[in-house]
């Protein structure tokens, strides 16, 4: 079987080895490239994802914010001197109801004056006044303010890095005003550094409601996995060792149904589930697994037939019932095959998109497949870093599963290649 390297042939030939290595490196490189791209994109700021030509390494602008160098988004470069002020009350405003009261604002120096000074004059820190056009009003209103600092043209307005600018809760809570921390820094303080933005990952997961979708997915996967493994094994045992009329026909029918495409049963199945009141529940996604699956039965039957027959006969002579033989002899001996069937069902179910698309309506029930698709299509594909972060986290469990259970996988893949 697979993994048996004693049957290796062909004299070690240096030239051929080098060619093989080069070819394999090239192809593996090509195969891994999209995944590497996915992970790297997930760790980039959104502006970098739009870059042409694309950049591989996540790079982000950093600036000292509150005394600590932190990732920032550059908003704009100042074109004329502007003053940082803390706004106070307007002419007719009462304390507590001021339009900009207490808010940090960036105002053109021409529209600020110190108390006792003139518009456009020098601006020493301290109390003063500012002019600001509110909304569509023609004339600017005058507000009291506290002058903090004056910035020269060429400085940058930067904002603390936030993975997701459309964090609605935060924006709404602040009345659409100052939602994210910002500062003005001189250009030479800005620095673009290679830095993975891990904060993208929790932001993406939170936004797509990952954890509840994970629970939904696990529920469907695990219920189906237990059912299909157990019931398929039972059926495979019956088909392998049972003597009953029509056994050959049942096996042939089982094989033949593998040819039936899902679309050919989709419409009546949907109606069946609707009549049962199962649409909008998880049941259409796992109940049928508890009645077995053709491919699994086929695989397990082939495996069972390869088991040493003497053991089964010995158990039978010892007076074991068929169920006991199944449970105490066949199941323990078939662990690798059963594990493989379970794993492959888990994989299939985790990846399944069409089933959930057909049967689930409510967002609270979405599986990860459906949720990721909804996330991507609702975002219109703009925040690619978040979409990629969610995709990567969605794929990761299967890859970890594979790396942990590599033996079962490789043996299983080879076993699916049993002569048809």
């Amino acid at each position: 079987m697979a993994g048996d390297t004693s049957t290796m042939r062909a004299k070690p030939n240096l030239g051929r080895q080098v060619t093989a290595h080069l070819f394999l490196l090239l192809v593996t490189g090509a195969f891994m490239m999209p995944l590497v791209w996915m992970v790297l994109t997930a760790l980039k700021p959104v502006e970098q994802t739009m870059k042409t030509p694309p950049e591989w390494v996540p790079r982000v602008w950093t600036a000292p914010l509150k005394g600590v160098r932190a990732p920032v988004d550059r908003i704009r470069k100042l074109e004329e001197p502007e003053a940082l002020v803390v706004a106070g009350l307007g002419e007719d405003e009462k304390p507590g109801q001021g339009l900009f009261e207490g808010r940090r604002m960036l105002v053109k120096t021409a529209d600020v004056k110190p108390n006792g000074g003139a518009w456009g004059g020098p601006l020493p820190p301290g109390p003063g006044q500012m002019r600001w056009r509110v909304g569509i009003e023609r004339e600017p209103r005058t507000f009291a303010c506290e002058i903090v600092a004056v910035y020269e043209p060429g400085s940058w307005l930067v904002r603390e890095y936030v993975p997701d600018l459309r964090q609605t809760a935060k924006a709404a809570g602040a009345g659409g005003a100052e939602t994210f921390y910002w500062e003005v820094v001189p250009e030479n303080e800005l620095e673009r550094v290679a830095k993975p933005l891990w904060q993208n990952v929790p932001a993406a997961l939170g936004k797509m409601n990952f954890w509840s979708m994970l629970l939904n997915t696990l529920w469907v996967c695990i219920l189906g996995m237990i059912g299909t493994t157990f019931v398929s094994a039972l059926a495979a045992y019956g088909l392998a060792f049972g003597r009953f009329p029509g056994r050959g026909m049942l096996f042939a029918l089982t094989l033949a149904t593998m040819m039936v495409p899902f679309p050919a049963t989709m419409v009546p199945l949907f109606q069946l589930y609707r009549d049962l009141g199962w649409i909008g529940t998880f049941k259409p996604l796992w109940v049928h697994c508890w009645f077995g699956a053709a491919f699994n039965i086929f695989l397990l039957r082939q495996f069972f037939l390869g088991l040493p027959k003497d053991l089964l006969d010995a158990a039978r002579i010892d007076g074991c019932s068929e169920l006991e033989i199944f449970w105490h002899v066949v199941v323990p001996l078939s662990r690798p095959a059963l594990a493989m069937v379970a794993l492959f069902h888990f994989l299939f179910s985790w990846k399944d998109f069409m089933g959930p698309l057909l049967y689930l309506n409510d967002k609270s029930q979405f599986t990860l497949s459906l949720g990721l698709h909804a996330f991507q299509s609702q975002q219109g594909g703009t925040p690619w870093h978040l979409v990629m972060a969610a995709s990567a986290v969605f794929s990761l469990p299967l890859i970890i599963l594979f790396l942990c259970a590599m033996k079962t996988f490789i043996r299983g893949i080879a076993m699916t290649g049993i002569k048809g």
Partner: protein
Amino acid sequence: MKARAWLFVTPWIVGLCVFTLYPFAASLYYSFTDYSVLKPATPAGLANYTELAGDPIFRRALGNTVMYSLLALVPGILVALGLAKALNTKVTGTSFYRSAIYIPHLVPTVASSILWMWMLNADTGLLNALLRPVLDVIGWRAPSFLQDERFLGLDFQNKEVIFGALPSLALMSLWGCGQMAIIYLAKLQDVPQDLYEAAELDGAGAWAVFWNIELPQLSPMILFNIVMGIIGTFQIFAEPYILTGGTGGPNYATYLVPMFIYQHAFEYQRMGYACAAAWILFGLIALLTLVAFRIGQRRVYYAGE
């Protein structure tokens, strides 16, 4: 083990009947009716089938499906064979290579479709970013992949590489061919050593060994892959649905039969029509499977049978 055996297979028999045979037969019945969710089915004879025969969109979908199947399967099997052959030269790091080529197969369809949608983006996609510097040298334009309804080719007049939406879909499926490579590798490792020794005595070269020993040994597996591949590719739904935002566009270039069935059943509420299309799909799968097995009987080498 007489009466008892029935008990073991009973759940499966029930499942087979309820979840496969009944819906399968029912959809055949519906295919001869005029049926929407709101009204009960009324017999319509062959109307659905004659309408399908004249439906340009269905014909397009059918043509696309066959073409996609070819584009996905043939290169897939060839690349998988090449990979298996290379892995079988007893290179160091086999398990690393093996994992690396298999892992893409593990990426869930939705994630891989979204990833490829972005990589295939004509303007900001990674693929064109890699292609463009090369094509710029000779002054050619890069392909626009999913936005291009055309097929494959080189437009010398406009100096443009044509790589359309349907081939793009197939390219994406090629990414998952690692599974096949691993199956072939396992089979190659099972090739009896004495065959190689005999070949060596005869002075056979590497190519002759592959053609006369390894390929025949692999042939049952290749046949199996072709059959499962036909069945699989004819049911592809999620990839084009996600890559094209549920449209099968541009201009039906990636519109495959399963999407036709899905849309008619669940969006246009024409269940009978959808079932007829599904049965044509099934008929085609059955026919091609039969043909593959027929050809296989003559071409495939079964050891010890």
